């Protein structure tokens, strides 16, 4: 049975009577228990992909097409009520910014139990017990006290752990985490990723991790999908792609990250900028910044093809 299979996902908006398609042709598959990283720069469409899976695309003029097969359901054909019973229970979402995604007027404990109370028929007392247990597992110091506190009383790292607790508490099958550690300091990031990994393995949860941080992906994921300008340009096994990237964008992206002990003057930049959704170039969307450009790149959209056992790349270089 398929766990999650996304085929030809596209999101369309109408802005000032013009149609803009920030993401299109997004296809990938996830097996149960897998950790898939979706990486890309700002504006590549990774968060929008996550929101589309959750059925949370901004509704104003937004149209989602394609199919999202999750277990027996195509999520795009479900009614709002049916989606409501899956969202939070079977698929959980950890939003990008814990500083703004917690409600400032409710105690954090109450925000965690809201999810279990909604999806499982249990008493408030049991829900509280489960919550405290989860908080302890995430090594939140003195859970009883933190339970009664408001978001503004907590540090960034603690708030992030509360948001993770909200995501994990209902025992979902799939967790979608959107930049869960971006706003944190490195030592706190390492702490949180460690706890996160621990809980995923214990509970057998599959994770779709959205991030721009290639280091986090390399240390956590089994597979990776690299997005650029609303398309997936490379997809496959993390070890293969990071040690031997095929797509010129993936190659360039890995080369422009400074690392410890790197020789001075060896940092390779990618010229130009990520294009906006309104003006994606024709043909391959990376061609204006690509060092390996061929004439057909300007006119023909490259298709995803299997370039080396299970690594898929969309580039004319390999045709």
């Amino acid at each position: 049975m398929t766990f999650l299979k996304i085929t030809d996902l596209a999101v369309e908006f109408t802005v000032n009577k013009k149609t803009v398609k920030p993401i299109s042709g997004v296809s990938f598959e996830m097996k149960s228990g897998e950790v898939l990283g979706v990486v890309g720069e700002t504006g590549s469409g990774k968060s929008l992909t996550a929101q589309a899976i959750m059925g949370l695309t901004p509704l104003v003029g937004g149209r989602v097409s394609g199919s999202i097969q999750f277990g027996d359901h195509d999520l795009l054909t479900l009614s709002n009520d049916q989606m409501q019973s899956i969202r939070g229970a079977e698929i959980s979402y950890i939003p990008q910014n814990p500083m703004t995604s917690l409600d400032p007027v409710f105690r954090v404990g109450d925000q965690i139990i809201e999810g279990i109370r909604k999806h499982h028929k249990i008493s408030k007392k049991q829900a509280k017990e489960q919550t405290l247990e989860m908080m302890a597992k995430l090594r939140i110091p003195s859970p009883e006290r933190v339970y009664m506190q408001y978001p503004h009383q907590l540090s960034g790292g603690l708030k992030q752990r509360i948001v993770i607790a909200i995501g994990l508490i209902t025992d979902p099958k799939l967790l979608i985490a959107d930049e869960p550690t971006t706003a944190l300091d490195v030592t706190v990031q390492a702490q949180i990723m460690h706890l996160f990994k621990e809980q995923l393995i214990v509970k057998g949860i599959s994770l779709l991790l959205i991030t721009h941080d290639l280091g986090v992906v390399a240390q956590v994921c089994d597979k990776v999908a690299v997005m650029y300008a609303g398309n997936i340009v490379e997809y496959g096994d993390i070890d293969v792609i990071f040690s031997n990237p095929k797509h010129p964008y993936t190659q360039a992206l890995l080369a422009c990250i400074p690392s410890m002990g790197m020789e001075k003057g060896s940092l390779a930049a990618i010229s130009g900028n990520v294009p906006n959704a309104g003006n994606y170039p024709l043909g391959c969307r990376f061609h204006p910044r690509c060092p390996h450009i061929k004439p057909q790149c300007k006119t023909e959209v490259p298709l995803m093809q299997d370039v080396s056992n299970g690594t898929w790349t969309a580039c004319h270089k390999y045709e």
Partner: protein
Amino acid sequence: MKNFLEVENLSVSFGVRGGLLLRQVGTIQAVNNVSFSVAKGEAVGVVGESGCGKSTLARLILRLIEPSSGRVVLNDTDILTLSKQELRAQRRHMQMVFQDPFSVMDPRYTIFESLSEPFKIRQIKHTADERLAKVNALLEMVDLSPMHGHSYPHQLSGGQKQRADIARALALSPEFLILDEPTAALDVSVQAQVINLLADLRKQLNLTFLFISHDLSLVSYFCDRVIVMYLGRIMEIVSAEDVGARPHHPYTKALTDNIFSTVPNKESQIPILEGEVPSPFNLPSGCVFASRCNKVQTLCREQSPVLTATPEGGEVACHYPLS
């Protein structure tokens, strides 16, 4: 060699007001007894986690904030004893590039107008043609075209705005530039563009840099030496080559260990630094890092370590430095 910038025992504390009557309820020692020097043409990085006082340190050196005590000597001028006019005159030699390129430019000025401002403030008389040539030269220096001068900030991308801000900082040919997280708001591909540009400018103009960042890999790539700060104090000063290979302070070691490398390794066991940063209101006696340090001993909780020289020519503040 004589030092270009000399910072001696620099400290600042802020009063914190709270409660109904906004009485002073405590003080935060944001920068505590910080001393270091920078040679002419050198690039020195300051790293640390949020709240460690690195941005405050930058503002103190430029005297955008008045320190509680200490001395800052830039090119034989004691910055802290200057009168207001003298300080204004001195500022053209020392400039700062800020973190957020989106808020640093006046949204109602074109880039040309923003870049002309420094000359107007210094009352440097130019004819219109000279001014245009001057600004265009600045734009060219940061790889922007004269066309960008006609744009308003909202029409530029983040990377272009950051270039424009670098041009603004370079307008009066300063010798010393403080870069406060110049690439934190940018994507990695654009970050690399800006970093390469800064490295070129450094060579061309013989600039001296103080580079503030939370990204240790970036700092060790760009700078000659690295200052590691924690809760307002210097933990270690170390050369960029040694910071990864031979850190002496357990905190520097933790920072380097916690960098997520892009070499895939699913089984990697990251040595986790337990505990949270102590509240700056209520600093522990002894070493400020003691509560999170895995090498902590009784002495660490009682006595605060002072910076001492290391065999490699750096300095470390630790009772039991790693060798």
